[in-house]
């Protein structure tokens, strides 16, 4: 068992550094369904099997064709004529012995006819190269069941993804440039005391130049307050004056030249961000005000339970502030002083989290759930990330497709520029319409390309008419889409396979923020865009 653990640690070392042990655990507990083992499908699955997803189930009613072998790495000519789900599963399985793979030799339509609840069991369903009628049906089944659904499509040199998830909560959003949570503008009691225990004016030189900059800023802030009516330096001019105040505090040698005190330099450099007023970010505020946070029931997911607990903290003990995050950046200081300061923040964070725990416990009790339904660990992680919480809510396919609820404004405003990626979306909708009418995609046979152009044009127009869209779709795009002949070039499939798998990992691990809700990629111009449709 331990052997297995270390060998996994070794194998997954390079990714554990991105999503951690708990992210990996989430992956290993996931069961993903992938429909259609086309090139795009197997590329996505490859990128999920390699990092060690728990279980996958491949659903595909097709037989392997020569065309498949031509663009799909996980199908070989010896598998021609076999069921595609089975053939691909065998080869994908080889990639990682820790992953277990199943296959179902059935088309999704059949499964939807006979037992739609088949799809309820999955952590995520990924539908690849599905006809419109199938993904609309499947979409409504999964929407009802609350199973996240990712639609992926490679159409010539165009890539398309659509994510449909009612509500996806993220605790660890891993923001790129997060500000530190230092509370210098509103120091908590323990921090105040700790700052008071330092006397910069009566310190040995060695201590003076090894006092963490946070304390230096706090000290000079006191001085500043006494001269400025207890107001923080707000604008550039005031901040500059505050920096000067700190600069004047640098010790000088017997000749009057300033000593080299790097901690003071750091303090000056950090003035701008360190004095950022402490407040609850609007995204977190929105979460507190959400209905799901308001009305906790025994069915409420732990995210909302804890969110409620944190809200209670903010409104009571926290005096309008989130629990202290408890981490400080690296800085110039002697180890002893640094660790002491670090502990001040860490202890306060633990204390705050404990208070949140109490609130959560009371909440659990009120809805008749045992207190151990949320773990200490979970609450701590939540508190630490309280400023970065995210909730992604996608619109359903039904909303996107209904003439009453579709996002007309987004489409119309994007289409002011005729080369917006939005045109690709309209074209995909049009080729689906073409398929509905002709039971094939335009341009799949070279000899038909010319006549298909006109037919596709009719589809574009009828789509625009149906939705009363007064926009211009350039003929170039109609020609281009006919030329594609619904082909699935491998390099586009590879690109989309990487992107889709990454979104799947975000959904499964609840780390990082997935796109919302439509992604379009143009391989010709190397551009991409996301839209809320």
């Amino acid at each position: 068992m331990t052997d297995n653990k270390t060998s996994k640690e070794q194998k997954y070392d390079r990714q554990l550094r991105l999503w951690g042990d708990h992210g990996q655990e989430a992956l290993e507990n996931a069961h993903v369904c992938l429909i259609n083992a086309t090139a795009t499908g197997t590329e996505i699955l490859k990128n999920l099997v390699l990092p060690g997803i728990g279980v996958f189930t491949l659903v595909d009613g097709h037989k392997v064709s020569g065309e498949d072998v031509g663009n799909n790495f996980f199908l070989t000519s010896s598998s021609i004529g076999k069921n595609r789900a089975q053939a691909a599963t065998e080869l994908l399985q080889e990639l990682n012995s820790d992953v277990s793979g199943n296959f179902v030799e059935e088309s999704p339509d059949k499964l939807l006819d006979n037992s739609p609840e088949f799809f309820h069991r999955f952590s995520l369903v990924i539908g690849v190269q599905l006809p419109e009628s199938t993904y609309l049906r499947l979409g409504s089944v999964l929407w009802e069941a609350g199973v996240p659904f990712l639609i992926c499509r490679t159409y010539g040199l165009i890539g398309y993804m659509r994510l449909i998830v009612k509500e996806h909560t993220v605790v660890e959003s891993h923001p790129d440039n997060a500000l530190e949570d230092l509370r210098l503008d509103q120091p908590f009691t323990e921090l105040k005391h700790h700052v008071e225990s330092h006397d910069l004016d009566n310190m040995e030189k060695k201590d003076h130049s090894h006092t963490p900059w946070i304390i230096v800023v706090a000290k000079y802030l006191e001085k500043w307050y006494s001269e400025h009516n207890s107001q923080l330096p707000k604008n550039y001019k005031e901040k500059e004056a505050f920096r000067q105040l700190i600069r004047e505090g640098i010790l000088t040698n017997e000749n009057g030249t300033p000593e080299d005190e790097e901690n003071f330099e750091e303090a000056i450099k950090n003035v701008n961000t360190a004095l950022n007023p402490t407040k609850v970010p609007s995204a977190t505020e929105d979460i507190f005000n959400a209905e799901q946070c308001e009305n906790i029931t025994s069915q409420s997911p732990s995210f909302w339970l804890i969110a409620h607990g944190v809200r209670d903290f903010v409104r009571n003990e926290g005096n309008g502030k989130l629990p202290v995050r408890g981490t400080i950046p690296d800085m110039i200081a002697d180890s002893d002083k640094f660790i002491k300061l670090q502990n001040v923040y860490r202890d306060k964070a633990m204390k705050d989290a404990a208070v949140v725990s109490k609130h959560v416990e009371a909440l659990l009790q009120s809805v008749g759930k045992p207190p151990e339904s949320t773990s200490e660990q979970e609450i701590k992680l939540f508190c630490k990330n309280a400023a970065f919480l995210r909730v992604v809510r996608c619109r359903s396919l039904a909303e996107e497709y209904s003439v009453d609820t579709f996002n007309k404004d987004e489409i119309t405003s994007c289409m002011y520029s005729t080369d917006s990626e939005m045109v690709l979306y309209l074209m995909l909708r049009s080729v689906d319409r073409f398929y509905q009418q002709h039971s094939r995609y335009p341009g799949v046979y070279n000899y038909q390309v010319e006549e298909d152009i006109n037919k596709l044009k009719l589809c574009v127009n009828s789509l625009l008419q149906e939705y009363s869209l007064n926009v211009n779709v350039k003929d170039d795009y109609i020609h281009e889409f006919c030329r594609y002949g619904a082909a699935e070039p491998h390099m586009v499939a590879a690109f989309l396979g990487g992107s889709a798998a990454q979104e799947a990992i975000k959904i499964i691990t609840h780390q990082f923020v997935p796109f919302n809700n439509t992604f379009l990629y143009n391989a010709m111009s190397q551009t991409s865009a996301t839209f809320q449709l």
Partner: protein
Amino acid sequence: MAQLVGPLRKELADSLSSCRVLVVGAGGIGCELLKNLVLTGFKNIEVIDLDTIDVSNLNRQFLFQKKHVGKSKAQVAKESVLRFCPSANITAYHDSIMNPDYNVEFFRNFQLVMNALDNRAARNHVNRMCLAADIPLIESGTAGYLGQVTVIKKGQTECYECQPKPTQKTFPGCTIRNTPSEPIHCIVWAKYLFNQLFGEEDADQEVSPDTADPEVAWNPADAAARATASNKDGDIKRVSTKEWARSTGYDPVKLFNKLFKDDIMYLLTMDKLWKKRKAPLPLDWTEIHQLGVFGYIENYVETLRSQLIEKGEGAELVWDKDDPPAMDFVTAAANLRMNVFSMNMKSRFDVKSMAGNIIPAIATTNAVIAGLIVLEALKTLNSDFDQCRTVNLQCCSFHVGVIGLVQILTLAVFAFDCLRNVFPVIGPSVQVSMKTTSVSNNNKFLSDFGIRNGSRLQADDFLQDYTLLVNLIHSEELEKDVEFEVVGDAPDKAPVSSVPEEGKNIANGNKDSAQPSTSSKAAEDDDVLIVDSDEEPSSSTMETSLESSNRKRKHHDADTDDAASKRKRLDQQPADDDEDIIALD
């Protein structure tokens, strides 16, 4: 093939099956790329990689499986691809692309080169080779969720080296040896220790206290006294660490006592160091061992010692972050030292991250990037450089390469026949090393200066404010009696040069040039520097700083003791010949 119908024009589709491409690297991007290439219709592919397969590759390098661990990446990648796509024609090389066998002629065999590398030295090298051979190059890289792809085509785009890259952080020796203040200092020290004990000994990787620390202002008399006072192991200072360790039979207690007790006590005697710092605390073996918190360093030492013995006499171990005993040893040693210097301990996971400069790597990013590479490849083969996502700027090296045999090409030939006659350099003077001037160096071969295949030389002509970067490519296959061959055209006069600012600050050459100068004066006015000699990535870190310090020195020369030194040279040799090169190795 079905996938070619539609999206690709027929001529392009046909050209795929006839063209030859080179993939440099069969790792994360390389595996994906090979697959994409064969499935897009590329038929003739050569792949080169000097690496072997490691367990930590398996989370993304899908052409490899557990049973392949330890085997050649290029070879296994080839076999795996052929298993799925038997019709492809793939050649695999288990070798370094920097090996001179892969000369300009080799590169000219291809219509396109694609980099899938993980280090800058090799990237620089392939960049220069492709510029010299005038073969388009697609450069790429990934780090965690981030990735990039760019097309480099001589005369049309920027090259890989146009934009200065951030350098890897290095630490001064005395910080590592005497006054570590951050965990990374202790980790670097522990890695040095590994090499001192088990690997290749390197004088720049000393681990014992540094008595030459400028902060100490050493008094030699005190030093001697202190040395005898604290030096219980008598001879350890005189023999190498490895020899000493071997003589003790890698006795873990003796090792421990020297490294974490005696050496630390010695450091304490350098009291100046601890006036402004917290002094280190020597450790006691029995106490520490009872705690057991640092892992059992003696076990790691023992494992490594037996590995060393197994390899036979004179063998060396190579530190590898993915080799558990080596990693365990470094973790334990680093943590012990962190404890000595009152730092908080780091987990093995974190130590590994820092010691191995680990860049997170995942399948998804590589998949995306490899897909993009092929799309750029198609545009490149189609000569749609305008459509490529790349920067179309004047290139830093002006696409100049000189091909010659470094062991045959002399400095004189290079400076006069090549620089002066082929390029618009008026007064070639070449600076050699810090002190030398050298006259006699004239007939020295380029190889004597450490100039090798792929070295980049910078010629500054202060007479005209002209800077030329020359990529030197070593070749054994020049025609008879041809000493060198120049690839690419130098501009008549340099436009905006992309060399570091210092280049412009040294303006005295310019001022001098106001009057027609004597030959000796002219000779002083430009120099050739080796700006990069393609060592390990770490060596390139010194590039900028060394360069600037040398330049400063030169400035100084020209200003002050110029006259004296010049006279001396004139005495020895005709003025024309005074030349030197600064070798920045």
